[in-house]
């Protein structure tokens, strides 16, 4: 039973399994189990292309946020303000679109607002210096206040066919929003795995001392990471605005931060930093999305939905942990 394996052989050519990672394998298993359950409960609709597209649309916003959050967590930080930034950016979009009568101008302004809000987070964290959790908790509250102030707490309807087209248009049968998600995913995967900056972020979160001694400009990195996170939130805001055709100061964005963090952790991020993958986060997002969709389709009552969500979240992590222990990582 005991065979001698040399250290090098074990690891050399990253097999498919190795690439995906034991952790992701178990997330994949969890996802497949969920799909099987809901597929069996609603064989008539669950696997129709239309429903799968619905799932995709439903997770677009969460997916974008979860990927950005993954990068932030890997760098050793946390961004609790993303939900507020989503709301703020939709309001900026709506106001500017209204004032200028131009949707593109509104979109640009919304994206810019997200970038600036994120950079503000980064500046506070770096030059405060303030613990990232507190800083973004603070700006979560402040950005939400700003978003409310823009129209006295009310949402702002947006009229404009170009935005509408963005919200309901399709390309090769897939809605734009899903293409956006796919593009974002590709960009994030390449960024974290194949670029020098991406790898340096793992260093930053994994061991700040080494990163500092290696001459990585930590402050500039941190500010940029939070600015990126704010920008991603604004992109998510753009999706939200195009789906709801309105600037929403809070609705649809409250609680998003917690869901994004949940997905990232479910996907294998460690809050200490230095660890986590985009693919894992997206699997986490899909699990949450399929769960929500399946429960809507099977009309599970609200209170049982809460129970089921909680239980499933925990179960998914237990399966994952067991798998990892078995694979001896």
């Amino acid at each position, binding site marked *: 039973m005991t065979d001698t*394996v040399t*250290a*090098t052989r074990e690891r050399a050519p990253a097999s498919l399994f190795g690439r995906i990672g034991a952790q992701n394998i178990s997330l994949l298993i969890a996802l497949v189990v969920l799909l099987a359950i809901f597929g069996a409960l609603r064989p008539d609709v669950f696997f129709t292309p239309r429903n799968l597209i619905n799932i995709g649309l439903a997770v677009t916003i969460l997916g974008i946020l979860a990927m950005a959050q993954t990068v932030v967590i890997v760098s050793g930080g946390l961004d609790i303000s993303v939900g507020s930034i989503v709301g703020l950016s939709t309001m900026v979009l709506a106001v500017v679109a209204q004032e200028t009568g131009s949707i593109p101008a509104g979109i640009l302004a919304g994206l810019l607002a997200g970038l600036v809000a994120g950079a503000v987070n980064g500046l506070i964290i770096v030059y405060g210096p303030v613990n990232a959790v507190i800083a973004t908790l603070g700006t979560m509250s402040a950005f939400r206040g700003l978003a409310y102030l823009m129209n006295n707490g009310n949402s702002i309807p947006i009229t404009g066919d170009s935005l509408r087209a963005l919200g309901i248009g399709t390309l090769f049968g897939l809605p734009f929003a899903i293409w956006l998600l796919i593009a974002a995913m590709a960009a994030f995967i390449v960024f974290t795995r194949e*670029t*020098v900056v991406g790898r340096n972020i793992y*260093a930053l979160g*994994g061991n700040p001392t*080494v990163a500092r*001694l290696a*001459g990585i400009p930590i402050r500039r990195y941190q500010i940029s990471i939070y600015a990126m996170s704010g920008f991603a939130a604004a992109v998510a805001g753009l999706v939200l605005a195009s789906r709801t055709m309105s600037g929403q100061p809070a609705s649809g964005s409250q609680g998003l931060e917690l869901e994004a963090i949940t997905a990232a952790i479910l996907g294998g991020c460690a809050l200490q930093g230095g660890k986590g993958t985009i693919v894992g986060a997206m699997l986490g997002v899909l699990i949450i999305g399929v769960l929500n969709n399946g429960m809507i389709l099977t009309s599970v009552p609200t209170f049982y939905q809460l129970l089921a969500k909680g239980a499933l979240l925990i179960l998914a992590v237990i399966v994952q942990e067991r798998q990892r222990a078995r694979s001896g990582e």
Partner: protein
Amino acid sequence: MTAPVVSVENVSKRFGAVQALRDVSIAFNAGEITALIGENGAGKSTLMRVLEGEHRPDTGRVLVDGHPVQLTSPRAAHGSGIRVIHQEPEIIPELTVAENIFIGDIRARGGIFLDRADLERRSLELLGTFGVVDVLSPGQRCHGLSPALRQLIEIMRALRPGARLLAFDEPTSSLTEDEAQRLFRVIRRLKADGVAVIYISHRLREIIELADRCVVMRDGSRVADEPIAALDEQRMVRLMVGRPVSDLFNRRERALGPVRLALEDVTTRRVEGISFEVRAGEIVGLGGLVGAGRTEVARAIVGLDPLLSGKMTVGGQPYKPREPADAVAAGIGLVPEDRKQEALLLMQAVRDNVSLVVPDKVSRYGFFSRRRERALVARHVAELRVKTPSIEQAVGKLSGGNQQKVVFARWQARGPAVLILDEPTRGIDVGAKAEIYRLIESLADQGLAILLISSEMPELLGLADRVLVMQSGRISGELPWQEASEEAVLALAMRSGKETIERKVS
């Protein structure tokens, strides 16, 4: 004569109550290996941190090529060609070996994408130089590497072209003889290339073998700066300690008591069929190469790794630890090999660290008695001559050697029946080493059963009553002290050459 590559002039540095450096002036010349020795806490690492721009000196200045420079950050120091290999190796767990080595200097294609081929090529070259290609592969994640491998990575990280001054802060403290020799070859080559080298170590033999010149520090001051030819071990020790040091080892017959710890055919995921006994008053040595599985034996004994088969007894009673708590309760103490990760609460005070395992002695009905705690801790700290401004000092701010003494103080306060020492003198100065050897001997004389894991041959041969040698997760032989010699131990440790780096996987 040209100006020295780097020199410090009248540098002083104070931390709170501690004067870590006082008025130190040293010049480091191209193509010269300058050894830096001194007791624990003498200020060696502090001087390195000044050179690397981590600390700013309170007074005095640093000159590069004869010109004063402001070293405000490690980046600035790197810019001046100064690199330091740190005493406590640091790695980034989720990155690969190659990425860890070249972090900060990863080349990019198109200015953005990392060039994995280049990374692999460059790291294979370095791994080859150190002869560890078969243990470390460039694409391997660094998560879970042993201290020795971490240290090798730390060393390789500093070996970049363009370095003009390279400082090694105790690079060999967790390396084996073999790996150390390879390192020396690298250092000699650097010297031939005209690099100025600083070499800090507590192993005086290495220094005589390697260095051209030796600077001795004591209590933050430079007390000697002489060519190596003018020194011998005895004089070095005298200069360092400021007083004569007794012989390192006093071999004497001990009266052995009953069996305190017995392992019978113990097998875990990493070791196989381990059987031995340790009696009261006995010091059993456990030798072998890095990765032979000695630490894993200790882990099994304290309940960290579950037994797959076999059994253990303590004091004759069956002993089945599920948790280290069971080991402590059964009277087993462990001084782990990695003090930073496994032994010390770095942010907390010396007091908290020492009293951690003796809650019963410093409390009544679960409530602390600060008075008793202070008295107890102060006594043990003084007994071991831990150099600290107060027992409230955060342990992380002590010098490496003094940190290790704190770990000893902890177990001395507890007074266990069995003590397992994993590399107990890693990074400890000669003076303190002698003290710790005395301590180990006196503990044995008091009837403790001691299992001593060590890669320092003299220590193993000088202290142990008998030496067990491990190889690839098994015990390959046993030598009574009379027969134990370096050659005999090595012969057992390396019986089948390369196999040492192979793992038994069940």
